Each structure stands twice: as C-alpha cells, then as structure tokens.
C-alpha cells in the first residue's frame, strides 16, 4: 500500500504526469486511457500494472487472513473522511452487509448489545480525546440476532493542532474464548459448591469434638482438633471467595439491596477482624468524619469489601503495626461514602502496582509473608465496586505501607443491572 502511494507520488512529481493530467482535462476521461497508453513508456506501464496487481493481491490476502482469524481492521480518519475504511470482516463482526463506505461510530452503536452500549460509547468517546492505545470489549448483536463477543485493540492519533486525526485498530471475534472462559468459571462455581458439603461435615465434626460432648480430649488432641477447625474455616472462606468470583464473572450474582445502618455494619465487620489483629498486636484505629448515614446497598457485598481491605491491612502489617480506618462522606450532596484503610505494612512493590487488582495476582513480597492467600480479595473488591458505581485506588510504598481508598454511592444500583440467575 505504502509503496503504491510512494510510486504514485513520484509519478505525480514528474512532468509527464502533469502533461497527462492536463490532457485528461482537455480530452475528457474516455480518452485518458488511450492517451496514457500512447505516451507512457513500456517500463512505467508495466510498473503501474504490476503495482495494481500487487495491491489487489495484498488486499485479497489481507481479507483472507482476516476471515481466517475472525479479525477485522478499521480506521476512521476525521481530517480526511475519504481515507476512512472498514475491512470486510469488520462488517461480519457487526453482522452487517458490506459496503465500501465505513459506518460512523454512532452508526454502529445500535448493533452493540444494549447492556454494553453505554460503556462502549463512553470508551469510544475517551478514544476521541486521549491519544494512544486503547482496548475495549463488547457484544455485537447482528440484525439476524446473532451475538458475538468482540475485542478491539486500537490507537488514537491526535494531530498537532489537537484536532483528532485518526482512530484505527483491529477488532477480533472472541466469542469462543468467552465461552471457554465461562465454562471454566461454571466449573469453578460447581466445584466450590460441591466442596461446601463435605466441608460442613468436617467443621461440624471438629466443633462437636472440641465441645467435648463426645468425650473429653487431652491437650494434644484439643490442639489438633483446633487446627482442623481453623483449617476448615480458612478453606470455607476460600470456597466462598471462589464462589463470589465465579458469580460476579457469570453475572449471576443478584444484588440483594436493603436499607441498613452503615456504622453498624462497619463495626460488626471490623469486630470480626479483631481476633486476627490482636494475635499480631496490631492496633485498629477506626474513626468517622461526621455522621454516617443509613444506606441502601447489598450488605453482604459491602461487608466483603470492608473485610478484604481490613484483613489485608492486618495480614501485611508488621507485628505491633497500626491500621487506620476512616469513614467519611463526600461533598455537600453527601451521596457517596469514602473509606480509607491505611497500614504501615510491607507495601506493594512499584513494579507490581499495576497488577494488584488482577485476578489471582499476588505481589512477590505478599507471597513470602502470607503464602496461602488466594489473590482474589482485591479483584473481588474492584469487581463489586465497578458494578455498583464505586471506585478503589491506593498509594503504596514498599516497606512503608499502603493506603486504600474506596468510594461507593449511598444508594447502590438495582440488581437488574448485575443480572440474575442461579449458580
């Protein structure tokens, strides 16, 4: 393509080209071919024919490769719209009939699944204003009703005068990958659920032994049974975490929204963590800036957020460390709650700060200190907050400590937006 343009450009700079152009204007298009053929040298003629052939071959090869890879390419050129294009496969990904002029971003929005449309529109909008690479995923719904999962990897190029120049990239059909991923998640969900049944027996049997209703235990036996109780409790927590993750990913976690007292929930949840904190002589300093409201939210999910952040802070604090938790309300409207959890623990290494919200990711220093963590806690926190219109961020310095800041609305969105179903 580039060679083709360069050659055309070199021809355009030759005087022969201009003679041809002027002749075209004088004689009209029908005579152009005849004139061109008569006045152009054999070498140039064969070069142009060869270039046209090469271009067509390259286009055909690209189209074939895109079809094989279920991948389309696109470019919207906002300075010269005539240079915008959509490859044939792009039309296939949206279930549309091929045409030579590409649709605009607004044209394609109706073919994006209604649940993904708002977010996709926001991301396209962001691509208009921020130069550089971007990625997005959404489902397309063809006029025939066929749904495809599409992943876009693109780049925005902004002209020096700050007018947007080009948004270009490739789109890939990731429907099969999504199906495999869903099957894996369903398997995890089923396996976790099945694990709970024998786990209940283990913990109840240990509890029965520990109560000595089945006969007295000697100190060593008591210690062993206590260890069984602790281990089954930890395993139960892990299974619950896996179940929550799989439900969040499958979209089957229905929000159970009720109105409750935020302060009550906070204090109950933190009280549950006191034992772990006392064990390490970690001081928990809980305070409130102003009155805490009654909120309408999913109590269990909010508890999970608080639990994860506070238990991480305790886990990664040094012996006799300090965990500071502050709750406050935002702005005059007081429509959002802020929670700050600060510790003076091991901190998150700078190189890993970009990955800590990724599923199963655990920072290297965290793995050394607490080898049996799941790497799901922060992923769960972020996933829940993303779904309910909240946010989580942090500042951290290795060896100094970490401060997480969470915000969430005082009225969470309806369960419908998260989906419902059974797992």
């Amino acid at each position: 393509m580039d060679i083709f343009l360069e050659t055309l450009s070199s021809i355009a700079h030759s005087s022969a080209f201009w003679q041809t152009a002027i002749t075209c204007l004088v004689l009209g298009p029908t005579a152009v071919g005849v004139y061109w053929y008569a006045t152009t040298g054999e070498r140039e003629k064969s070069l142009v024919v060869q270039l046209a052939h090469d271009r067509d071959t390259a286009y055909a090869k690209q189209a074939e490769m895109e079809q094989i890879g279920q991948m389309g390419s696109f470019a919207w050129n906002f300075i010269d719209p005539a240079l915008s294009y959509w490859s044939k496969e792009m039309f296939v990904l949206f279930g549309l009939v091929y045409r030579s002029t590409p649709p605009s971003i607004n044209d394609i929005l109706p073919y994006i699944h209604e649940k993904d449309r708002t977010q996709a529109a926001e991301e396209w909008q962001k691509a208009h204003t921020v130069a550089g690479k971007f990625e997005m995923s959404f489902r397309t719904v063809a006029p025939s009703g066929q749904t495809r999962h599409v992943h876009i990897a693109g780049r925005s190029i902004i002209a020096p005068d700050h007018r947007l120049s080009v948004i270009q990239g490739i789109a890939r059909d990731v429907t099969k990958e999504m199906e495999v991923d869903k099957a894996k998640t369903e398997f995890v969900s089923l396996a976790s659920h099945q694990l709970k049944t024998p786990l209940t027996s283990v913990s109840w049997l240990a509890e029965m032994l520990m109560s000595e209703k089945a006969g007295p235990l000697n100190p060593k036996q008591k210690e062993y049974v206590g260890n069984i109780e602790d281990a089954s409790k930890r395993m139960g927590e892990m299974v619950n975490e896996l179940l929550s993750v799989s439900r969040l990913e499958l979209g089957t976690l229905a929000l159970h929204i009720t109105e409750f007292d935020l302060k009550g929930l906070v204090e109950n949840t933190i009280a549950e963590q006191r034992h772990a904190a006392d064990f390490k002589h970690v001081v928990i300093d809980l305070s409130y800036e102003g009155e805490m409201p009654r909120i309408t939210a999913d109590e269990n999910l909010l508890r999970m957020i608080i639990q994860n952040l506070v238990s991480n802070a305790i886990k990664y604090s040094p012996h006799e460390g300090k965990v500071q938790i502050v709750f406050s309300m935002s702005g005059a409207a007081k429509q959002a709650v802020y929670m700050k959890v600060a510790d003076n623990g091991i901190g998150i290494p700078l190189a890993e700060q970009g990955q800590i919200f990724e599923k199963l990711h655990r920072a290297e220093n965290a793995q050394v200190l607490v080898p049996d963590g799941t790497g799901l806690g922060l992923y769960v926190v972020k996933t829940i907050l993303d779904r309910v219109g909240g946010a989580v961020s942090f500042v951290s310095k290795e060896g100094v400590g970490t401060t997480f800041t969470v915000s969430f609305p005082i009225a969470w969105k309806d369960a419908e937006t998260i989906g419902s179903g059974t797992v």
Partner: protein
Amino acid sequence: MTDQHKQTILIIEDEAPARIVLADSLSSEGYEVLQSPDGQDGLSMALHAHPDLILTDLKMPNMGGLEMIKELRKDTWGKGAKVIILTNISDLSTLQEAMSEETFFYIIKGDSSMEKVLQSVKTALAK
C-alpha cells in the same frame, strides 16, 4: 429438664456425617431426634411423627427439600409445621421460593457453626 427438651426434631439431610453429628448434638441438648436421608422418606416420616421442627436440606436424592415442603404444606398438619432450611445453596431466588413456603429461616450450612444452628432451633421452637 424443661418441656422444650422433650420436643422432637426431624433432620432431613443426605450428607450422613453432617446429619449424624447434628443429630448427636441436638440429642445432647435433650431433644428427641429423627433422621432421614432424603425428601421422600423425610416427608412420610414427618407426616407420621408430626415433629415439632423439621430441619431440611434442599438438594437431595429422590425428592428435593423444596418439593418436600410443598407436599408437606398440602397436609392439614403439615400446613403449620415449623421448618428450617439447612442448605449450601446461597442463590437468592431458590431461597426466596423456599421462604415463600412459610418456612422459618434458612441457614447456609457452610457458613454456620453448629452452635448457630442450635440457636436457630431454639428460636424456632420458642415461637
């Protein structure tokens, strides 16, 4: 021993170790305990023995807990029988369906100590 300690409790649960240890624990509290491994057997046992309280699992062979409760409610005595659901299903829609059958409460087994189950039993029987 108070009257409460002579009350009869039926446990319908297919996971034998959990059922047996719960039965032992309730017996040690002075309750009369009946046990059944599935919904169908549990239903006939309930209709025959008229226990003061039924603890039932939901997912069981032969007849699930939800179907068992529906059948139970068709009976004149069963209409008013006290039922606690003991399950690991934490899916709200199933639980809501079960709760609409006028059961007392549900207990997520995996998240509850036996002590908590005992407290729920006492609360249900006191009502």
